[in-house]
Every structure is written in C-alpha cells, then in structure tokens.
C-alpha cells in the first residue's frame, strides 16, 4: 500500500492560468452574482419564489440561488435585434417599458395585449405614458444597457462593472464604447446617475483619431456662447462627434469640426448624488442637436453642420463616478417635441396640438381615444395620437428583478417560478402573472444590491477563507475557475457515486451543493500566486563568455579518449546532497532519493510517496541535488541543444544531463546507480560519476511529433486533480472522496494519495493539469526536428515535382554552345533564334532522367506546330550507351553529346535532370531541376505561355 503524506509548508507557490471547459454547441447563459462570481449554465424548473435553480455547466446537479445574491443572468444576444411589432409603447412606473396593442381604457385599468405575455390588465396609476410605436419611424438601434456585453472598455484593465444591468465606474479615465450605428435622424435618450461627483463625457459618434494632428478652433465659423461657460482654446481635431460634457458644475453640449465649433449650456448639475434623464434629437444632415428633458422640456441646441456617418456611443468618466442606467437610440421622424406641460395629463397629436385632460376611454371599434378635457370630452383618432401622458406623477416602483427582453421591452417584478422554460414574474399594478419564454429574455437583472452586510452568520468566516460546515468545522474557501465560471465556495465531503466526480462543490451563494462534472477542466485556487518575479537574466547585458574548449565535466569525459587535457584548471563542484526532486510529465513534483535508473524507469525512495518505481514514460526530469538549477544558456545555444539533426532521426537523444558546473550533455541515459551514470553518446556508452550530475531532463520521442489530431477526450474518464502545495510539490491523482477536508484518491503512477486541503494552494482539474504542466520550466525542454531541406518539404506537400529554379540564368541570354549530335551533325544554339528550344540534360545512369525523358519528349511534341525544338543533352557518355538508353526508352529525340561536360557547366547543371527553356529571342525563360510527376504539366504551362506570347502581334 502506497500512501502520500501531505506536508504543510509555509511558503506559497504560484499558479497562473486560464481555464477552459468543453464548449457546448451553443453558448450557455451566464449567471452573475452580486459579489462578482459567475456561473455559466441554464435555468431548471423551480417553484419557490425569489429562488433561481441554476444548472451550471460544471456541476451535475443544480444550485439554488436566492435572487438577492443575483446581479444578472445574461443570455447570448440574438444574432439580429428583434424589433417590437406593436402599435404602442407603454411606459410604466419605475422605467418599465412594454410594447403592445391597446384593448381598452377604464377609470382604473388599461387593458393591453402584449406579446409574448398576452392580455394584461394594468393599473392605470402604473402607466406613465403611451406613445405611438407603429408608423412612428421609431426604429430602435440600441436599448439598454443590459450589462457589459457588447461594450468595449478602455483602458484594458476592465475598469467598468455592471450592477443590475447598469454600467458603473469610478475609475478616472475609464471609457466604454458601443459601436451602434447612429441613424441619419436619431433620438438618443439616456439616464445617468452618480453618487459623489459628476465629471464625464458622453460622446455620440467618433472622437479624434490619434494620428490626426489637432487644428486650432477658429476660421470662418462663429463660436457662439449661449451660457456662462468658456470655450477652452484648445485644438479641434477632425471628428464626427457630439459631446455631452461636464464643465465645472454644468452639463454642456459641444461639437467641433475643422472650421466650426458650437457649444451650449444644458443644465446645472447638483453637487453630490444626482441624476439626469434626457432625450436629445440629432439631425446629422443639418448638424443640429437638440436636448430635452425626458418628459419634453427643451434645454439646449447646437448646430455644427458636417454630415458624416456617425457610429458609436462612448462614455468616459473623467474624475468623478458614473452609472449609466439607461440608453436608448432610435430613428427619429425629425419632429421636435412640442412644449407641453408635463404635470398634467394630456394627449399630443401629430399636428403638434395638445389636448389636456384625462384619458377616459378607448373605443376600439372606432379606434378613438376619449379625453375628458376642460371643454368636455374630446375624441381623437388613434392614428393622430403621438403621446398620451396618462399619469404624470406615477408611483415610484422597484422590485427585486428586472427582465429585459430581446425586443427591448423591460419589466420589473418578483420571481414567482421557473417552469417549462418559462419565467413567471409578479408585478405590482398588473393583475396577471407575467410569463416569459426564456428564449425571449435577453437579461435578468437583479436590483441594486443592498448593503453588503451579509445575512449569513458564516460570511465573516468565509471572508477569512473558511466556512463553517455542519459539523462545526471550517471548510476552506477557494475560488473555482473554469470556462465561463468563477465561483467562490468550498468542497464538502463526498465520494464518487458514478454520476460526476467525488468533488462536491458548494458555491457560497447557493443553498445547495453538487458534484462537479467529470469532464471539467479548471482550477480551484485557495491561495493566489505571488506576482511573478522580474527575470534578471534577460536584462543582463554583460556576461562572461564560456571558453570555447572547456575542461568541464563532459569535456573531460569526451576528451578522455583524445589528447589529455589539463583538468586542474577549475575545480568542478560536486552535488551538495542526495535529496532529489522527481518531475513527472503530468507536472507532479515528488521529493525523493533516486536510488537508480535502468531501462525500465527510475527507482526512488520517498517519504512523501511510497511508490518506489516510476516508468520512463512518466518522467520529465530529476534534480539530483538540492541546488540543481536549469542551465543558463542563451537562446541560440539552447535552440541548438534542442534541435535534432536529420542524420540523428533514427537515434534521437533521450536525455539532457546537466552537470554541477552547468555543462550540458545530450545522450541516452542507460543506467544510474548510487555512484555511476552510464550514458550512451553516439552509440558508445560512457560512464560518469553521479556526484557531478546535477539534473537530468528526459526528452521523449513523442514530444517531437506535432500531433495534428485533437487529443481524444474520454468523456467517461474520471476527473483527475493535481494538488499544488505551497512548497511546489505537485501530485496528480484520481480523487475518490473528500473526507474531513482531505482529498483521498489514487495515482496510477504514485499509488494511493491523500492531500489535506488546508495545505493546498491550488487544485488543478482535468485538462487544465496538462496545460499547467506545459508551462512548467522543465516541460519546455523538448527536442524539435531540424527543418527538412527544400526538396523534401516539396515532396511532402503535393508529391514530387521539379524545383522551379530561381537560377541566375533566367532572363539572361542563353549561353552559346556547339555540340556534336548523335546522328553526326552539329548543333549550334545561336542558329536556333526564332524558335523556342528545350534543353534536357540527362545521363543513362540517372533514374529520374530516364523517367522524365519520355514525358518531356511527349510534351514538346505537342508544340511541334509552334516550332518548339527539343534537344536532349547527354552528359559525358559514349554513343553506344546513349543509343542503348534511347532504344530502351523507345525514343528518337535529338541528342547532343556533351563529351567534356562544358555545356552542362555553362548551364550550371549541378543536378539532373535539368530542363531549360530558351525563348525565341535566345533568352532562358524557365529552368526546372529534378524531374518528377509535376514536370510535364509545368513544362506544358511554360511552353503554352511562351508560344502564346510569340503569337501576339507586336
């Protein structure tokens, strides 16, 4: 029986990593907790009010979460914005908005038909306003925000956070941007609040680009100052923007163009906590921006004509705090709101007139509104109505939950139940329960969190890193990280039962716990790593160079068979102790004493593990001395050391031996005992004294091959964990149970394992283990193949083909030559001008030549009519040999006899077959070396190109 006794250490180790979980086919929804944690997953049915039952992707069973702990649930955005298909937009108390058709209006209730909720009876005290939607050209471009999704943040450290869907920051300079398109005529409504100090910019369009040089204000345009603010005399770069900006205690609107700028005072902003809710109308054609309060009071207007396409809304916090609560961008029909009294119920008509009075009814049959005005009842045809102010002083309303739909509608309420993929909500002022299909929901937003004082007695203890369990003991709180998951919580006692792993996770926000899934890849961090230390080796500029001929340990060994060297130059340090550290390929680190190595593996004695033998396949390195360190090699040297020459592919070195003086030897470790190390170098075995070996790195053959296939994922495999302790010791094993804060399991390599969770910095889970191992220092020591020569690489990609030469001959006058032909005649190249000539250099002993010749002959024959001539140039063979070769090939090509090889030399023939094409002007146009299956095609293409050219009139 082998067991691991986990030791407690007091220094802590770093583990950095990003985790991944097998991605599902569809992006899952993400549940965000108010404490910043998040869990990807989906809803499961729950009948208990104000409780979400959440099936996380990392757990087998759902977690129950109280609504007060939920900040948001975001669903993947639909690929296209759904536009509301409805007659009216109903604005409700608390900022809710529904789209639908009007059925009836009575003294108490307004009856509306709103998909997907159906027929609703709404208390008219909860309806602030009804506006015309259909036919109003009011096409929504942006409605939100519903959290940070879709926004880009600057600078990179994510200075913005979301709360109840709102975007919040108090970081100076924090900027957030949404690239929504601003229509030609646009209505932009926003609601912004702050706690301490308003100091922000809200920008419509695009700000100055960095490369563009700023230009001074001035020129032909006038600068109008409408309010007691001064325009700063600063440069005005080329932009398309309109800005709301806080100057001192005032909100102003500003726009600057090349030669024109305009600014206007909008309103004073109160000191301390405050809020603004405005609607602005932008006509890009005229450059006019008009600002109104959200209920229609005119505030300011500027005019900066420069009609360019504008994209994007950007919010920047300068030196205050800001909360963007609502932003709506829609197309606008170009009609500015009429000035109306906003404290009295009224009906605004299309023609701009206003009827003051309470709406008393809606005649669906005649499609008319009934308004009880001062002059009695007025009937208004529905299509004439633009805005109906129903309850100017609507009750303020808030609820624990806001549901934002894909259409842009949003409504608050209390969660009643989740059933059959439908969410059921109760809202004051609406009689019916509101039932949404989850597929229609974009976001579920929790209300602004209450004070962070927890209602759970263990909160304080949890913040200390421990949570009290049922037995009164404390479970250690960790942070579980995986793809789409960050969850604080703790492992509760559990054992493998077939469904999921034995690791049972209790998120701190949940009232229930669940086994983690077996296929999980991630990490459970109990203690964060310290920040990485600076790397002094990279910055060092001077370093004593090693002498070229080293009397080092290996130098001594290798020189022993040559000229004796003076070995007394520098004493070689010996290993300081026998304490060793065994590094496994999975990342495990085991302190031990290495008693030996043989063909099968490594023999160890360890107080940490009872395993005594580790097969080679599992081993990555052994440090044979406590002061062992990796050799300090420069990049080039290291690259050379880890490059496998082609000639050694049959016999790759399997080990790097690092001497106590830093020397490195590449070879094959054969045996090691207490005193000696036998290592094979170039098939010869050498014997080294072990005390001079500091560490040995294993170079595994499999590491050489770059796997093209995705590693197979065994879905049924049990979850593997790797415990990382503060002292750097790592153990990988399959856990079987968690008992009393200890993880118990078994390692295939090391045997039974038990790890006290109190002593662990990080638990790596699943595939994350190998990812983390790959980042360990020894694991980067891998052999790589020396690159293949060009011709071999070409063979691999698309079969053997001739090397299309970039020879210097190409484009130049073909070297003149005169040779005897096999038939006794003479051949002179210069006499061939006006014809394309193909020269094919060959010899009968050259297999590839003999293979290529018939096809070359055949291709050139195709161009007989164009006068292309083939001359095969035989290299230094006698006539008999040449004749025999032609007979064998059954060819009667023209053969020129290059008896002394002088012509081949002129044509720089270093490998045959070489095929040279000479154009009609006597210049070399193409040159192919090496024959192969692609030669005929390439030759044909080249000849076609040439002969076509020749056919062209001058």
């Amino acid at each position, binding site marked *: 029986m082998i067991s691991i006794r986990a030791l407690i250490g007091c220094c802590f180790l770093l583990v950095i990593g990003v985790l991944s979980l097998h991605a599902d086919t569809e992006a899952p929804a993400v549940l965000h907790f108010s404490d910043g944690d998040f869990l990807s997953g989906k809803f499961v049915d729950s009948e208990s009010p104000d409780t979400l039952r959440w099936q996380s992707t990392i757990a087998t069973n759902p977690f129950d979460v109280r609504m007060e702990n939920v900040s948001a649930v975001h669903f993947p955005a639909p690929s296209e914005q759904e536009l509301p298909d409805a007659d009216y937009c109903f604005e409700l108390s608390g900022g809710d908005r529904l789209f639908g058709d009007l059925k009836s209006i009575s003294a108490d209730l307004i009856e509306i038909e709103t998909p997907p909720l159906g027929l609703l009876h709404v208390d008219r005290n909860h309806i602030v306003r009804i506006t015309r939607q259909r036919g109003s050209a009011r096409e929504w471009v942006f409605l939100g925000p519903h959290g940070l999704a879709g926004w880009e943040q600057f600078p990179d450290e994510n200075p913005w956070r979301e709360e109840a869907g709102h975007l919040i920051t108090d970081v100076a300079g924090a900027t957030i941007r949404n690239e929504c398109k601003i229509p030609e005529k646009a209505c932009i409504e926003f609601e912004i609040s702050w706690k301490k100090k308003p100091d922000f910019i809200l920008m419509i369009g695009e700000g100055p680009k960095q490369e563009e040089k700023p230009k001074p204000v001035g020129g032909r345009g006038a600068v109008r100052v409408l309010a007691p603010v001064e325009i700063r005399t600063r440069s005005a770069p080329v932009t398309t923007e309109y800005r709301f900006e806080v100057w001192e205690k005032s909100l102003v609107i500003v726009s600057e163009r090349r030669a024109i700028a305009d600014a206007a005072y909008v309103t004073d902003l109160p000191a301390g906590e405050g809020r603004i809710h405005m609607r602005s109308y932008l006509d890009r054609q005229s450059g006019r921006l008009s600002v109104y309060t959200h209920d229609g009071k005119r505030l300011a207007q500027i005019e900066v004509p420069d009609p360019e396409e504008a994209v994007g809304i950007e919010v920047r916090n300068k030196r205050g705090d800001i909360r963007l609560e609502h932003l709506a961008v829609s197309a606008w029909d170009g009609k500015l709101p009429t000035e109306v009294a906003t404290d009295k119920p009224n009906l605004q008509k299309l023609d701009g007139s206003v009827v003051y009075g309470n709406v008393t009814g809606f005649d669906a049959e005649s499609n008319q509104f009934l308004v009880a005005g001062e002059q009695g009842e007025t009937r208004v045809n529905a299509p004439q109505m633009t805005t109906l102010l129903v309850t100017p002083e609507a009750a303020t309303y808030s609820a624990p939950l806001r549901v934002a739909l894909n259409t842009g509608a949003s409504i608050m309420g209390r969660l009643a139940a989740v059933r059959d993929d439908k969410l059921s909500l109760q809202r004051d002022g609406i009689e019916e329960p509101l039932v949404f299909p989850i597929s229609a929901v974009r976001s579920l937003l929790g209300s602004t969190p209450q004070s962070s004082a927890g209602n759970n007695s263990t909160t304080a203890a949890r913040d200390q890193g421990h949570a009290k369990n049922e037995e009164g003991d404390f479970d250690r709180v960790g942070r579980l990280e995986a793809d789409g998951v960050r969850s604080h919580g703790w492992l509760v006692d559990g054992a493998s039962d077939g469904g999921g792993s034995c690791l049972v996770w209790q998120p701190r926000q949940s009232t229930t716990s669940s086994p983690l899934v077996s296929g999980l890849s991630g990490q459970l961090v109990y203690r964060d790593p310290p920040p990485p230390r600076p790397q002094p080796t990279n910055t060092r500029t001077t370093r004593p160079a090693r002498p070229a001929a080293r009397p080092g340990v290996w130098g001594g060994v290798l020189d022993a068979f040559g000229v004796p060297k003076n070995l007394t130059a520098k004493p070689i340090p010996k290993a300081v102790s026998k304490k060793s550290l065994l590094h496994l390929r999975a990342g495990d680190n085991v302190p031990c004493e290495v008693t030996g190595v*043989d063909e099968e593996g490594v023999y160890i004695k360890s107080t940490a593990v009872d395993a005594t033998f580790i097969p080679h396949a599992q081993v990555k390195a052994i440090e044979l001395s406590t002061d062992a360190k990796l050799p300090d090699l420069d990049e080039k040297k290291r690259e050379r050391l880890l490059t496998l020459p082609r000639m050694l592919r049959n*016999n790759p070195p399997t080990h790097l031996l690092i001497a106590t003086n830093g020397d490195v030897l590449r070879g094959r470790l054969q045996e090691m005992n207490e005193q000696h190390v036998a290592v094979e170098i170039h*098939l010869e075995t050498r014997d080294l*004294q072990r005390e001079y070996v500091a560490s040995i790195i294993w170079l595994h053959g499999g590491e050489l091959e770059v796997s093209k296939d995705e590693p197979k994922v065994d879905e049924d495999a049990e979850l593997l964990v790797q415990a990382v302790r503060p002292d750097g010791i790592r153990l990988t094993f399959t856990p079987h149970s968690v008992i009393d804060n200890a993880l118990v399991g078994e390692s295939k390599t090391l045997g039974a394992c038990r790890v006290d969770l109190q002593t662990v910095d990080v638990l790596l889970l699943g595939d994350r283990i190998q990812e983390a191992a790959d980042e360990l220092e020894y694991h980067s020591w891998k052999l790589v193949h020396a690159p293949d020569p060009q011709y071999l690489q070409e063979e691999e990609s698309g079969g053997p083909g001739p090397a299309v030469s970039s020879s210097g001959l190409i484009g130049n006058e073909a070297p003149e030559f005169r040779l005897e032909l096999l038939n006794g005649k003479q051949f002179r190249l210069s006499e061939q001008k006006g014809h394309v000539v193909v020269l094919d250099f060959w010899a009968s*002993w*050259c297999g590839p030549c003999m293979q290529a010749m018939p096809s070359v002959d055949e291709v050139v024959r195709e161009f007989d009519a164009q006068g292309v001539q083939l001359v095969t140039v035989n290299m230094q063979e006698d006539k008999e040999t040449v004749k025999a070769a032609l007979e064998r090939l059954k060819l009667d090509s023209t053969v020129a006899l290059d008896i002394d090889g002088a012509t081949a030399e002129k044509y720089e023939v270093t490998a045959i077959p070489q095929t040279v094409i000479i154009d009609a002007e006597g210049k070399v146009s193409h040159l192919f070396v090496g024959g192969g299956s692609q030669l005929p095609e390439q030759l044909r293409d080249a000849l076609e190109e040439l002969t076509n050219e020749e056919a062209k009139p001058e």
Partner: protein
Amino acid sequence: MSNKNRSHRIVRHSLTYALALILVSPTHAQPPTEHVGEVVPRDVREMYDRGLQYLAKTQSEDGGWKGGQDGPGVDGMCLMAFLASGEDPNFGIYSNNIRKALRAIIKSQNASTGFMTNSMYHHGFGTLALAEAYGTVDDRNLWPPGEQNARSIGAALELAVQCAVTSQKKNSFGAWRYSPDANDADTSVSGAVLVGLLAARNAGIEVPDEAIDRAIGYFQSMTADSGQVAYSGGLGGFDESLARISIGCLVYSIARRKDMPQHKATLDYLTQRLEQPPHSYREYTMYYESQALFQGDIEAWQKWNKLLIRQLKESQQEDGSFRGDFGPTVGTSMSLLALALNYRFLPIYER
C-alpha cells in the same frame, strides 16, 4: 523481477569500477551482449520468435508467401529467417515451414535453365537461401513420392549457380540486371546474385573464380573513392544509398577481398555514419548494413546493432510482423535477418 536482477547487475558493475575516477573507459561500461558468442539478449529472442510466428502463420499451403512482393526470393528470405533462428531445421518447431519453403523455391526453378522466376533478384536470394539450407536441412524425404521436379537442394543449387554464371557470361558488364538475358547491370540485382554465388561456393558448390572476379570487378568499377556505390551505368549519380554501399562492402568481405581499397572506402563510409537513417528502403538497407558492418568491423556492428534492436522493438507490429516498402513478408523477413546476426547461425554470417 527482471528489474531486480538488473539492478543487482548494476551494483556489481559499479563496485568493480568504484575505483575509477570521473572517467571510465567505455569498454568497461558496455553491455554484456557485445562479446562475440555471448547469449542473445532476451528482447531480441522475443522479438525474433514473434516475427517467426508471424511468418509461420502467413506461409501458404504451397510453401510460399503471398501478399506484397512474392516469389522464390521472398520465400528464400523467409526460409533463411527460420534457418537463422537456431531451431533444429530437421526436428525443431519450424522444420515443416522450412521444408515447405524449400519445396516452393525449388518448384519455381526452371528445370533446364535453372532460373528462379521472375527476376534475377529472386534468383539471387533464392540461390542464397538454397546455399544456406544445403548441408543443414536433411532433404532425403523432402519430396513426396512421385513429385515432378523433385530435385535435391544440392541439385537445385548447382542448377541455380549455372544459370547465374551463364547470365553473367552474356553480360558485357560481367554482372546482372533483372532479366537473365539483360545486357546492362545494376549493383542491387548484382549484389543479390553475387552473394548467392559466394554462399554457394562457401557451401561447396563449384563456382568459377572468373565469375566471382568479374562480378567483383564490376563492383569495383561502381565504387567511388568516397565509398559511395553507384546504381547502374557508369560512375556518378547524385544520391547516396546506404544499401548499395553496404552491398559493395559486403561482397568484398565475403569474396575475401578486404584488402581492396574499395572495401575500406565503403566500410569507412558506413562506420562514420552509424546513426544515419536510410533515405529509403529501410528494411533492405538494414538487411545489408547489418551484414556489411558485422563482416567489416565487429565493434561498429555492436553499436549499430544496439540501435537496430531499439528501432525494431518500436516498429514491430502487434502480430509480430514488420511493415516495409515491399509488404509485411519482405519487411518481416529482412528485419529478422538483420537481427539474426545476433544469433550467427547462418553460414553466410561466418566471419
């Protein structure tokens, strides 16, 4: 169990050399297998047995092997793999396989010309196999009564030698090519035939000196000063073939011409590149290189052999076979014969 034994051995080893300083002479640390006549390492024996079992299993009813390359040369290679194992050829577990293979080879021989179809490659390897069997396999009851062409091994071998000599006489190079009537030659086919002739002569069959001398002359003419051996035609070619260099080196050794500069050149070429993988025809190269090194430089062979064993251990298939360019039969028999130098039972391996 074996680990324990091994570690004991290391301990004894290290005690012996405990007095050595940092440096210990390499010979001291070499494995025990190196000494000529040492027992064959167990992993080699296991590998070999698994390979033979594959060949035994795939031998067809008529005694030959089908699939991939086939013919008397391939059958001869398999036959030699059985003969080289050291199992008694007449009464051992493979005696039936051996007799069946012999009958297949002899049956393929033309009774009048002696040619073993369908190329001189097959003829050469077939001749070699017959020569290795001659004198060791009791062929008195090789054939069932009434069998036509029921030649003895000796008769078949004599006939094969005659065919090769006749073919050579017609060849202006004094060597051989695929067809027995060819007038050109290459060093690959010629190596197969010449080794067959040399083995026949060693087995006591009369082979004219002139035939050997002419063939050796051909090889000399094909060997460059660098040690490279050309394929066909005149000297030259731009490629390096460890297989051809090994063939050259081997024929000089077996023909007892180690004094020739060409022998030294080819041997040096090989010993300087012990770790170099062949460009192509891996098993064919291993087959010749093992013998060339064994005959030429036993110490180099010992090193090379270690690498061979490691590589073959990795490439042996589950069924005991070795894949190769010419199918599993050729791949397996050639790989086994490369390993068989560890056994040294075949007469051709005598140094």
